C-alpha cells in the first residue's frame, strides 16, 4: 500500500528576479512499513524535500498524496490537523520542550488528539519501554544525555501511531554508540509496528539500517538503492560506493 506519493515536486525560494530552484521535479513513492533514507551532499535539497513532504514548507509546484489525500490543497488549519493525526517528527536538535518532563513531552501528540488518559498512559508505557526510557519519565530534558533525548523525541514521534514518521538527521548530534542504539530501536519499531519512516541523513552507517536509500543531487533524484536480502555490511558498502560516485561527479563540475 502506498502511503506517500509525490509527483513532480518543485520548490524554489526567492522572488521573480532572484530565484533559487531547490527541488526540480522529484518523483517519489513510499509504501507502508518502509524505512527509507534520503542521502545527498550539502545543499542538494534533502531537508527541503523533507519539509515539503511533511507539509511544513509549501510546494511551488507538483502534488503530494499522503494516505490518498492531496496535501497541497489543504489550508493551514487543515494541515495542522493532518500533521497532528498522520505525521510524526524526529529532529537533529531533539526539539524537546525544556519546560516539560519526558513523559509530558512524549504525551504531547496524544494531548492534541484528545486521547483518553488511560489509553494515553497505556501507550506511553508501551513505547517508552520499547525505547528504554520509561524510568526517565519524570526527568527534564536537560537532565538527559543526547541519546536519551533523541529516544524521547522518537517516542514522541511513535506514540500516536502516525502514518509516516519524518526524521531529519536524527543521529547528527549523537556519538556513534548512541547513534547505533537509536537506529537499532528505530528499525525494531519499524518492523514491529509496521511504521513508515523517512529519514534524511548524510551518515552512510545510519542509511545502512534502512530498506531503501534515495540519493538526491541538485534537486533531482540521482539514484536509489534497495537493500533486498543483503546484509547491513554489504548494503553499507553499496552506499559508500554510490556516494563516492556522487561525490566524484560533483568534483568534476
Amino acid at each position, binding site marked *: 500500500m502506498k502511503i506517500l506519493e509525490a509527483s513532480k515536486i518543485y520548490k524554489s525560494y526567492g522572488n521573480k528576479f532572484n530565484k533559487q530552484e531547490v527541488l526540480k521535479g522529484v518523483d517519489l513513492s513510499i509504501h507502508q512499513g518502509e524505512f527509507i533514507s534520503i542521502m545527498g551532499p550539502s545543499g542538494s535539497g534533502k531537508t527541503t524535500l523533507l519539509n515539503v513532504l*511533511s507539509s*511544513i514548507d509549501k510546494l511551488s509546484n507538483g502534488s503530494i498524496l499522503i494516505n490518498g489525500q492531496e496535501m497541497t490543497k489543504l489550508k*493551514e*488549519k487543515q494541515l*495542522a*490537523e*493532518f*500533521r*497532528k*493525526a498522520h*505525521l510524526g*517528527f524526529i*529532529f537533529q536538535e531533539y*526539539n*524537546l*520542550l*525544556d*519546560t*516539560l*518532563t519526558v*513523559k*509530558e513531552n*512524549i*504525551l*504531547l*501528540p*496524544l*494531548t*492534541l488528539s484528545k486521547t483518553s*488518559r488511560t489509553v*494515553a*498512559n497505556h501507550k*506511553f508505557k508501551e513505547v517508552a519501554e520499547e525505547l528504554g526510557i520509561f524510568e526517565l*519519565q*519524570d*526527568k*527534564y*530534558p*536537560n*537532565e538527559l544525555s543526547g541519546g536519551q533525548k533523541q529516544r524521547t523525541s522518537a517516542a*514522541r514521534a511513535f506514540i500516536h501511531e502516525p502514518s509516516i514518521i519524518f526524521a531529519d538527521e536524527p543521529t547528527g548530534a549523537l556519538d556513534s554508540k548512541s547513534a547505533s542504539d537509536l537506529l537499532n530501536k528505530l528499525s525494531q519499531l519499524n518492523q514491529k509496528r509496521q511504521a513508515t519512516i523517512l529519514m534524511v541523513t548524510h551518515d552512510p552507517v545510519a542509511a545502512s539500517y534502512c530498506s531503501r536509500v534515495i540519493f538526491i543531487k541538485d534537486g533531482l533524484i540521482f539514484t536509489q538503492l534497495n537493500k533486498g536480502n543483503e546484509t547491513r555490511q554489504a548494503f553499507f558498502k553499496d552506499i559508500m560506493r554510490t556516494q563516492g560516485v556522487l561525490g566524484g561527479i560533483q568534483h568534476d563540475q
Partner: protein
Amino acid sequence: MTSKQLLFRNLRKNLKNYSLYVFALIFSSALYFSFVTLQYDPSMDAAEGSIKGAAAIRTASILLIAIVAIFLLYANNLFIKRRSKEIGLLQLVGMNKGMIFRLLSAENFMLYFGSLLIGIFIGFSFSKLIILLLFKITGVESIATLRFSTEALLQTLIVFCMIYLLIMLINHLFIKRHTILALFRVTSSTEEQIKKVTFLEMMMGIIGLFLIVLGYYISSKLFGGDFTTITELFLAMVIILGSVIIGTYLFYKGSIRFIFHLIRKRKNGYLKVNEVVSLSSVMFRMKSNALLLTIITTVSALAIGLLSLSYISYYSAEKTAKDYVAADFSFTDEDQASTFTETLNENGIEFEERSTEVIQVEVDLSHISDGDIEGDLVEGTVLPVVSDTAIEHIDLSSGEVILSGYNDLLQNFIRLKDTGALELNNQKFTYLGLEDEFIVSGYFTSGGLPVAIVDEEVFTKFVTEANPDIQKPSNTFYGIDITNKNQLKEANHFFNEIMATSNGPHESQLNLSNNQKTNMGFMMFIVAFLGLTFLVTSGCILYFKQTGESEEEKPNYTVLRKLGFTQNDLLKGVQQKQLFNFGIPLLLGLFHSYFAVKSGWFLFGSELWTPMIVVMLLYTVLYSIFGLLSVNYYRKVIRDAL
C-alpha cells in the same frame, strides 16, 4: 558600510523593536517635564493651599526621577543583553571595544534625546491640561495659564542627561567586562537550569504563603484593640510589612512553582493543549524574576493603597465635615451668630437657626467600654451633655442617658457596649445606646467624643453643679442651616467675609469640606501622578520581559506547530500564560493593598468600598493594556514560528 550607515541601519531596526521603550521614555519625560513645570508655575501657589505643597511636589519629583531612572537602567540592561550577540559579532569582525561603545552611545543618544525632546514637547502641551485637572480636583478657582518655564526645561534636561550618562557608564562596563565568547552566551546564561522541584523550594513556597497570610491576619487585627500602645502598634506594622514583603518574595521564589508542580503532578504527564504553553513556562520563569516581581508587587500595592486612602479621604470630605460641624454654619458666640443671621436676612437667604446649651460633665465609661483599655481615657473622661429637649425625637426619663454622634475613628479605639451603666457626675444612669446624629460641633466634643443626652431636669441640675474647671469658654452651640441649599455657596461667601476678621470658634461645613478636598485632592493628584508613572514603567518592564521570553520560546512554538498545534491553540495557551504572568503580580498587589487599606481606612474617611473599588478597577484596566500588548507580540512570534 561606514559606521554612520551602520548606526542609522541599527537605529531603524531598533526603533521597531523598542517602540514601547521609546514610548515609555517619551511618556516619562513628558510626565517629568509637566510635573516640574507645575513646580515652577506661579498659579500653583493657589492650589498648594495650606499644606506644604512645594515640598510635596519636590519630594514627588525626586521619587518620580527614582522610578524613571530605575526603569530606564533596567530596560537598558535588558536591551543590551539582548544585543550581546551583535556586540560580539562586531568585535569578531575587528571592531575594538571603544568603537563599539561609541557606536552604541551614538545610537542611544539619538534614540534617547529624540524621545526626550518629543516628551518635553508633549509634556509642555499637556501641562495646562494637568494643571486644569489639578484645579478641578482640589476645587481651587484660578486661571490656568500656559507658560513655558526655562527652569523646568533646564532641570529636566540636566536630570535626564545624568540618567543618560549613567546608562552609558553601565554599557561601558558591560562591553569592557565581557569577552567575545561570553557575549555569545549572555542570553543563555541568564536562563536557569530547569530542574525538579526541590524540598527547599517546597518549604519556601509554604513559608511564603504562610507569611503573607500571617501579615494579612495581623493587619486585620491592627486597630482592633489588641495593640494599644504606640510601640506595640509600630512593632505590629513592621511585622506586617516584613512578613508580607518576604512572603511575596518567597511566593514568587517557591510557592508558584510548588503549586503548579502539584497541579502538574495530578495531571500525571497528560497536559491539556493550552497548559503546555502556559503552566510549564510560568512555573520556571517566574522564579528567576522573583526579586523584580516582588518590587513591582510591593510598589504597586503601595500605589494602590495610598491612592485608595487619599481618594477615601477626598471622597468622604463632606461626611467628615458634617461630623465635625453639626450645622451648615456653627458659632459659639451669640454676637457673631446674630451678625451673620442679619447679613443673611439682608440678602434674602432663608435659614433655620437653633441654639443648644452644652455643659461639660465628668463621666465614668468603664462599665460600658469594650475591651481592656485603662487609664484616663475611660475614667477621667469629660463628655459634653445636652438636654433631651434639644433633640426632637428623643424623650428620656431622669435615670436614663443616650450617647450620640461618636466619631468612627475613636470608636475603633474605645468601643462601647450597647447597654450598661454610665456614671455622670458620680451619679449612675442607665445607658440606652448610641445614636448616629451629631448634635453639636467639634468644639464641644473635643473633636469626636459622643454627646450625652439626659432628661431636662437632670440637665438643669448638672448646670448648677457644673465644675467650672472643665467648662469650655462657651456653653452654647449656635447652628445655622440654610433652607435652600442652592444659596449655600452665597451664604458661605458672606460667612468668609464677615468672619475673616473676628476670632473665635466659628465654622462653616462647606469651608471645612473644601479644605479637606483641597488638601486630599493635592495628595491624590501627586500620588496618582507617581502611581501612573510607576504603572507605565513597570508595565513596560513586564512587557519587555515577555517579548524576550517569546523570542526564547520561539523554537518551542516551532516544534509544537510541527506536531500539529494550530496557531490558535498556541495563542490560547499564551493568553492563559499572560493571565498568570500579569495577573499574579496584579492580584497579589491588589490583595496587599486591600488588606493595607482595610486595616486603617477609618483614619482617613468614612466610605471604604466605592473609592477603593474605583481605584482598583482603574489600575487593573491600565495594567491589562500591557498584558494585551504582550499577547499581541506573541501572536506575531507564533505566526512566524513555522
